[in-house]
């Protein structure tokens, strides 16, 4: 038990350090996502090179990135310790809610059925095969295990099992609560604009977002599935999507771009729906940067930011295409006739008792969030994502009603927390006074909630101002530490 715990902590730490090696002193949630996406790429590369996954091969492959992360994070670590803040009661209560979810997950009380039916079994097959088990994936009777889905989660399971030397479900299920715990950090960053001395409302908003997600995760058994990874990805992009666009070419603009690129890559590697989310995030970020769309270079920069998504999804799509795994047998042409069965089921899904009425209120608030400038882009991404899901149901060949019933309440969790966060941001905006709402970049120093540049306890990319190693960036073009 102790060794399994140690291996889990070591792997999670290695992922964060690997993320730091790519991004510098990024916030923990961003570093974790970058590290997980990197793990996916490295394990895919090992598999393509016919090198079996083992403790040795994984350790040696990750080692340069871990060392790089320690090196790049060291200076930031000292700075972070000086600025560390537990962040008020909201963060504490939100963390408590996540701990309850982690406890329930660890006791196996809330295991996602799909952990049994496909995510878990694929992970175990990969673990035993020491690589992507194409023999399993290509067997025709395994189509119900969705062999064409992205492999980040099964690979994460396999890497955990390799590190632990065995297949221990309770630890594997903890990746879901960990994702939710990390989602606290971008929520804090997005709510960082509360006026100083006003802690109650942003704290309540934080608890509402994270607590409601934890509540639904327990009730609907999300432990062991990838749905909270998409929640984390969208919430990660929330601070970027809900604040004023920084000047093109500025350091803040580069940080925003990197944040969106990493969240998009993480989402795309986690789930098929994540590819859609990745596209929406990149599209929203690109459109928001429209003041600088007059020249060609910003588009080039945007294309560079899409590269991590391409790197993560490219091998998977190629392999899926080569092996014929991408076909979904229950997909056909769009049929409006399905509306008669889909719409009532959508209503029932929104009122699913596991949501305790939260989802229907959040979705009903979409129009309000869309007309508010502050929350427009966040609501647009979340709303379009949910709309895409609804549209997909219309392509069902058979059993559209069952499909909605069995999946829509669950995948609402990709967007509902972001909508709740939008509520919190709007409320804080009212509290601060509409017109005088400060940009997070100009935030008052004594705010209990740190500004996004300091938020999430460690939110400090190396800045040219505080890092003598970093050189000032040119006014255009990608930053020096942009991943290739």
């Amino acid at each position: 038990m102790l060794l399994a715990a140690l291996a889990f902590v070591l792997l999670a730490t290695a992922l964060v350090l690997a993320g730091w090696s790519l991004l510098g002193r990024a916030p923990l949630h961003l570093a974790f996502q970058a590290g997980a996406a990197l793990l996916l790429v490295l394990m895919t590369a090992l598999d393509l090179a016919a090198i079996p996954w083992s403790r040795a091969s994984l350790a040696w492959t990750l080692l340069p990135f871990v060392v790089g992360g320690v090196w790049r994070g060291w200076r930031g670590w000292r700075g972070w310790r000086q600025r560390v803040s537990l962040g008020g009661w909201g963060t504490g209560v939100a963390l408590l809610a996540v701990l309850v979810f982690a406890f329930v997950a660890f006791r196996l009380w809330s295991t996602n059925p799909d952990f049994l039916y496909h995510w878990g079994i694929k992970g175990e097959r990969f673990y035993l095969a020491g690589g992507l088990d194409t023999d399993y994936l290509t067997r025709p009777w395994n189509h119900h295990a969705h062999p064409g889905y992205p492999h980040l989660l099964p690979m994460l399971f396999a890497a955990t099992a390799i590190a632990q030397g065995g297949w221990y479900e309770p630890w594997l299920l903890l990746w879901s609560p960990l994702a939710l715990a990390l989602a606290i950090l971008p929520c804090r960053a997005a709510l960082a604009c509360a006026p100083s001395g006003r802690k109650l409302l942003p704290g309540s908003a934080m608890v509402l977002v994270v607590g409601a997600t934890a509540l639904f995760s327990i009730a609907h058994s999300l432990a062991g599935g990838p749905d909270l990874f998409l929640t984390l990805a969208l919430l990660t992009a929330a601070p970027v999507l809900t604040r004023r666009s920084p000047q093109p070419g500025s350091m803040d603009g580069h940080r925003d771009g990197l944040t969106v690129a990493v969240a998009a890559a993480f989402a795309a590697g986690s789930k098929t729906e994540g590819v859609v989310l990745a596209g929406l995030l990149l599209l929203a970020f690109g459109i928001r940067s429209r003041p600088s769309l007059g020249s060609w270079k910003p588009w080039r920069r945007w294309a560079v930011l899409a590269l991590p998504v391409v790197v993560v999804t490219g091998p998977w799509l190629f392999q899926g295409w080569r092996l014929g795994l991408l076909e979904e047998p229950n997909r056909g042409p769009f049929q409006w006739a399905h509306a008669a069965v889909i719409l009532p089921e959508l209503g029932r899904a929104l009122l699913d008792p596991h949501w305790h009425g939260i989802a229907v209120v959040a979705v009903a608030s979409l129009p309000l969030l869309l007309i508010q400038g502050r929350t427009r882009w966040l609501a647009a991404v979340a709303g379009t994502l949910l709309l895409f899901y609804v549209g997909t149901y219309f392509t069902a060949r058979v059993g559209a009603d069952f499909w909605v019933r069995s999946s829509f309440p669950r995948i609402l969790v990709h967007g509902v927390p972001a909508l709740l966060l939008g509520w919190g941001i709007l409320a804080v905006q009212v509290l601060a006074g509409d017109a005088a709402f400060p940009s997070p970049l100009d935030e008052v120093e004594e705010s209990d909630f740190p500004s996004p540049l300091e938020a999430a306890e460690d939110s400090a990319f190396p800045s040219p101002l505080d890092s003598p190693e970093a050189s000032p960036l040119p006014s255009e073009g990608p930053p020096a530490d942009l991943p290739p």
Partner: protein
Amino acid sequence: MARDHRGTAGRALTLALHAAFLCAVGWVALGLVQETLARHHRYGEASQRAVPASAWQLGSPQARRLEHFLTVTTASIPAGSVIAFTAPRGQQGKGDQDFFAHMWAAYFLPRHHILLGRGPGAAREATYRIDFRPPNATPSPPGWQPLVRHPLGNAYRRQPAPPGP
């Protein structure tokens, strides 16, 4: 320090916002406690009675029983074998419960290839067959020879094809 210069209406709005968010937090907290207790209760209750395979829980007695049965019956089956798994379709729930039982079997036997006994590939591809909880006194299915007999079911090996003329 931001000051509220919007007068009574502004203060009322601020107060209403605080009240609404605190109520929402209370609602979420109550739900969290309720759902956690419900999961605990449901997990314990499901362990004590017969539930269909679609409602089994990881680590529950039903799942552990199947896992133990499979461990015993597949001890002599080489890794990588294709095994057809059958279970009663509607004994414990709806008609497709054998499908869910076969998914559990696939999870518990990751070194083998498990396919649904009534599926199209079973007759053609499987070299072994496992019947979980067959009706009492069921004879060996034609074309299969007994491999392991267990109180919870049986394992069979496909009979070699007779030599041709």
